[in-house]
């Protein structure tokens, strides 16, 4: 599904990702954990195509059975999205004056055009909105308001999952979607994600807390440290991290003293 090889990326001349490699198969859920500032959001941004980051080395390939592999780095952000990549932002952006519904209608129309499909009729669109907003228990009111404007933290995160449900990506990256959520909101978000799990859809779940992984059970857990994946394992690695903190990772990765 997604193959990241030796990825190096920098911002404002500062190298943040330093040779990151990761293989994600279809239907798999990968959790990425790591201390603050280790480069988790950078990875998410580079995958989504944010122009502020410069990729200096490495490759990212998106593939699907029966289709030619796609060099993700050669695509603009909107093209990546149309190819089935979705990023749930750590900090969703407020867009005053653009209604959530018009925004999604526009997004869906362009996604469908890319697949050679006609736009949905108004009724089809609204039915879809109703169905998907129920999935994350998003109040119908929110759909009509301006994108994220005046939303609470939890509403913003649910709106991200709602958009994901509407766009039905093949690879979703959730960047700290659990941060700042109370337990009820966390359950709602997690069950929204779980409802979308399928054998063709993969997830990268970036999180700080293993709590989320009790609800979204990952197939693999990776530790990102200083721009590299320094440890990979199964679910139990998350519990170990929770118990021991990140200090042992730091110690293990000290440059050897001379």
């Amino acid at each position, binding site marked *: 599904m997604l193959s990241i090889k030796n990825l190096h990326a920098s911002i404002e001349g500062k190298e943040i990702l330093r040779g990151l490699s990761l293989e994600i198969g279809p239907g798999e859920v990968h959790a990425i954990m790591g201390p603050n500032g280790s480069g988790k959001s950078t990875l998410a941004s580079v995958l989504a*195509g944010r122009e502020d980051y410069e990729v200096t080395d490495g490759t990212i390939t998106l593939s699907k059975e029966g289709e030619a592999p796609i060099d993700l780095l050669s695509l603009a952000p*909107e093209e990546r999205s149309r190819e089935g990549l979705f990023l749930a932002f750590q900090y969703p952006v407020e867009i*005053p004056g653009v209604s959530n519904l018009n*925004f999604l209608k526009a997004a869906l129309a362009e996604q469908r055009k890319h697949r050679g499909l006609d*736009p949905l009729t108004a009724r089809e669109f609204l039915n879809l909105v109703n169905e998907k907003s129920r999935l994350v228990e998003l109040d119908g009111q929110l759909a009509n308001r301006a994108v994220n404007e005046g939303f609470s933290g939890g509403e913003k995160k649910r709106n991200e999952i709602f958009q994901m449900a509407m766009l039905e990506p093949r690879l979703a990256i959730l960047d700290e979607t659990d941060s700042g959520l109370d337990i009820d909101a966390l359950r709602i978000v997690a069950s929204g994600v779980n409802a979308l799990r399928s054998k063709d859809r993969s997830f990268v779940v970036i999180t700080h807390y293993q709590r989320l992984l009790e609800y979204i059970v990952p197939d693999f857990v990776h530790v990102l440290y200083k721009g590299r994946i320094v440890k990979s394992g199964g679910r139990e690695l998350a519990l170990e991290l929770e118990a021991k903190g990140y200090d042992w990772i730091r110690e293990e990765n000290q440059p050897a003293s001379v």
Partner: protein
Amino acid sequence: METATTANTTSFLEALQDQPSALSAHHGQQVNDARSMSALLPFPTTKSEAWKYTRTGRISNQPWRVTPAPAPDESTENRLTGLETSGRIVFINGQLSSVQLSEEARACVRIETDGNLPVRLLPQLHGDTFNEIHTGWCTSVMQVHIAEGAHLHKPLQLVHVITGTQVLAQPLLVITAAKHSVSAFAETFITAGTQDHSFTHRRLWLDIAENAHVRFDKIQSESGENFLLNREQVSLKRDARFRINTLSLNGQWIRNELSISLEGENAEAGLYGLFLPAGQQTIDNHTRVDHKAPHCESRELYKGMLRDQSTGVFNGKVFVHPDAQKTNAYQSNANILLSDDAQMYTKPELEIYADDVKCSHGTTTGQLDEAAVFYLKSRGIGEENARRLLTNAFLSDVLKEVEADALRDFVLRNLSERGLLYNEYTAAE
């Protein structure tokens, strides 16, 4: 002796010497005075505060002419179609060309075109160079009286058309809205010919009597080498309501000077503006609101979106006079620069001499929010459409104030042609 007179008015006045003024028949003295003053008063330069960013050189150094109104033809057609009106008054090159009123309007609208102004208005004929030149070579005078209690919901359209070169168009409009009347106006300055070359100075005096309501939409969309100066003086009596939308879509040089005086208790005025200069264009809005009576309200919102090397100016003065207790005055100017080379000069000026008032003002000037652009793109929306969605959102606060569908459609079509609009049409491209 070397004349200390103003070199910079000479070329302007030279070609005008023997030309008529529409005010001559009844106000010969004022016209003569104004002509003498025109020769003495210099054109404002960027040294004066009020003209700091808007140059007058390309107006002052041209030999303009007052031309007899050409017969209407294709080039002078009304370009705002589909608007349901109570009538149309058409000016070609600043000369009155036709007046057409609906039956409903004929019953409650009186029109005078003989240039005979009431004595109380005469002092207003004078002022700076532009006013003196206007009085000295006024091209037509039109007085519109809305009768007491009239209800004119469909707008009266005031159409200004320019055709030809070196045209000086200086109409004077005087509108009185009598007590309890309701009326609407749609004024259009739309030229399409690229060869046209003109200076239009349109003056408007609007008196809104007790409890009368007036709505005024103005669309400015000029092509070619047209310079457009609009000066408006509006007074509101007790309980009067006034709403004006100034929509400056296109024009190489546009300056709007809008002055509103709230003179009776509980009067309310709303001033909304949109200006979209591109290329080398300059669009300048100077507004002034005088709160002279208690319990009045003014709401002002101007939005600018600037492209290329264009210049925008917003200067909004609000004066709250000592007697105007319980005033509510809100002013806001927000601008987006779509290019690094565009320049926006914005200056709110509030002077408050009463103590029990609520006033607020704010200005912002910035770029499109790139984080928002990225967010939209990350959902599959293309670069162009992402930007259009954001520019639409920015402009919508003002656009929603435009009531007549045909006016809004005209504006939307114009925005769409200039790539500033997101709609089904552009989405399907």
